[in-house]
């Protein structure tokens, strides 16, 4: 794989860029709600609460030199979703982009899926760098020529123009979800994808918008018997028949679509027994899984719950093979986090290119790098104070109790309004995108 792909403590991370407004007064529409690199890493897409998608493109100037600095600049911006109103239920449907997923590139154009709570859209992003000129009947500005002045016939030719990037909606997949969509995942067959809401998972064909197949339905006959909901779902990266979905009870189910049309019965159930010594009022909340991601190899999957990241081997269902505490110092603060609603925050997680390091966010604009191969971890911060060009990020430490050492920050000083919920790792290089509330930070491996 190009680049070392390794991260964690062997790699020093430097600030590269920050995108977004500097104001402390954050407009709600600008809050970033999803971040995703495309399959090559050349494009980086963000979605926000205002329903907009912004795509950044990596500069190709020095791509031939793998260790050179490359910057991401705005490539395309478009309004993906608008607020809607469900008149039957008298409910507003938010335009917030919940997820973006890129399709593998097949031709010159790029395609991505974006979704809000109810509707998924397939967008085509294409470049136009030439335009036809020399029409016989029209002027260059589009006005029709006086036919009496036309005395010759010419063939229009394409001439270069300033690059224009166009985004156009090619498919709209609507009216298939009663509950709020939390996940979309493109299948490795490049023809189908799944969408998951709280109680159901649907399988779509990318070309067909007027129907989808329901493949998982956990809605009980009597809603009073509801005990868990689906929180995330993803297709296996290589096996087109396999997908997983996580639940609010902390379980993950792996399903094989070859077994039956309706995959209500799982093929595998991944669950770790709860530690009774950690039982509290909030045990159910903190055990709810907020994200599930397959490793690139397809051998492992990672889950994120409120306090930890777990790595599961698909061949072992009864416990994870690795568990990392993200911010264990918050366990004694769960009551306060419940009061201020932070306990309901849904953190995402991601793998690096060679599956050796995983990353997830925390509070105070901290994010955590967990190096699996070396069993070490580091906490870094995305802040304007550390945003000088090529400034190396210093590890941060949180003091859980007792005497606070120099350079440590105490738990009570953490800013719980500054949370990093969304992160993404370039598929091949050590470049990461970290979303704070309304800013996107890009960090790169230090280049000597």
């Amino acid at each position: 794989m190009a680049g070392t792909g390794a991260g964690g403590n062997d790699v020093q991370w430097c600030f590269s860029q920050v995108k977004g407004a500097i104001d402390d007064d954050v407009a709600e529409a600008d809050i970033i709600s999803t971040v995703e690199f495309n399959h090559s890493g050349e494009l980086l897409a963000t979605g926000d609460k205002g329903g907009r998608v912004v795509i950044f493109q990596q500069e190709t100037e020095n791509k031939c030199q793998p260790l050179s600095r490359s910057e991401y600049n705005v490539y395309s911006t478009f309004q993906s979703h608008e607020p809607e109103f469900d008149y039957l239920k008298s409910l507003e449907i938010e335009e917030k982009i919940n997820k973006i997923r890129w399709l593998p590139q097949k031709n010159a154009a790029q395609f991505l899926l974006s979704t809000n709570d109810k509707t998924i859209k397939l967008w085509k992003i294409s470049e136009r760098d030439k335009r036809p000129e020399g029409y016989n009947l029209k002027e260059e500005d589009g006005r029709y020529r006086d036919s009496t002045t036309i005395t010759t016939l010419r063939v229009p030719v394409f001439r270069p123009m300033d690059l224009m990037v166009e985004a156009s909606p090619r498919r709209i997949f609507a009216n298939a979800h009663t509950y709020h969509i939390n996940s979309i995942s493109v299948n490795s067959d490049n023809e189908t994808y799944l969408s998951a809401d709280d109680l159901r998972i649907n399988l779509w064909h990318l070309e067909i918008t007027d129907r989808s197949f329901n493949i998982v339905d956990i809605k009980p006959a009597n809603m009073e018997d509801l005990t868990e909901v689906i929180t995330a779902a993803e297709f296996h990266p290589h096996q087109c028949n396999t997908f997983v979905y996580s639940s609010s009870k902390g379980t993950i189910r792996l399903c094989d679509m070859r077994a039956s049309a309706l995959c209500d019965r799982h093929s595998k159930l991944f669950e770790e027994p709860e530690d009774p010594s950690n039982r509290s009022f909030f045990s159910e909340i903190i055990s709810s899984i907020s994200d599930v991601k397959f490793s690139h190899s397809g051998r492992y999957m990672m889950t994120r719950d409120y306090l930890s990241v777990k790595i599961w081997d698909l061949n072992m269902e009864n416990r994870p093979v690795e568990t990392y505490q993200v911010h264990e110092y918050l366990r004694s603060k769960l009551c306060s986090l419940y009061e201020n609603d932070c306990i309901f925050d849904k953190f995402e997680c991601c793998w690096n290119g060679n599956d050796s390091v995983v990353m997830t966010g925390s509070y105070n604009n901290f994010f955590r790098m967990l190096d699996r191969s070396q069993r070490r971890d580091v906490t870094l911060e995305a802040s304007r104070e550390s945003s000088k060009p090529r400034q190396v990020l210093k590890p941060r430490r949180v003091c859980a109790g007792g005497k606070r050492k120099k350079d440590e920050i105490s738990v009570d000083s953490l800013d719980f309004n500054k949370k990093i919920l969304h992160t993404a790792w370039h598929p091949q290089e050590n470049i990461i995108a970290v979303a704070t509330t309304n800013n996107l930070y890009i960090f790169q491996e230090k280049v000597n």
Partner: protein
Amino acid sequence: MDVSAEAKRIMVQALSKMYSSRTQRGGLRLHRSLLLTLVMKSAREMYHGARAAEGDKENQGGRGPAASDRRCRKRLGQATSEPDFLPCKKAKMDPEGLRRAAGSDSRRGTALFTRSVIF
């Protein structure tokens, strides 16, 4: 007393969060509502367990079966009266439902609030 007070506070907050989520943009979030219901259930069980334990302590020593019957009736009577942690506006529920909800029937624990959040 501390456990009881904390449980009561958690229940009050859960109710408050559930009511405020009804006016949120995008409508009720099923996942959040379910988690609040589960917290409510845990806290309620803890609250009633703590109250029952206090009641046991007060009635300890020299009391016969008749007294324990009176204690049972007293507890039942308390359960049928309006719990003191409920805000003024509450979901409609018949007296039978209130008695059931105040009991420790864990199977119907989530019914108390999922009924109000079904859509």
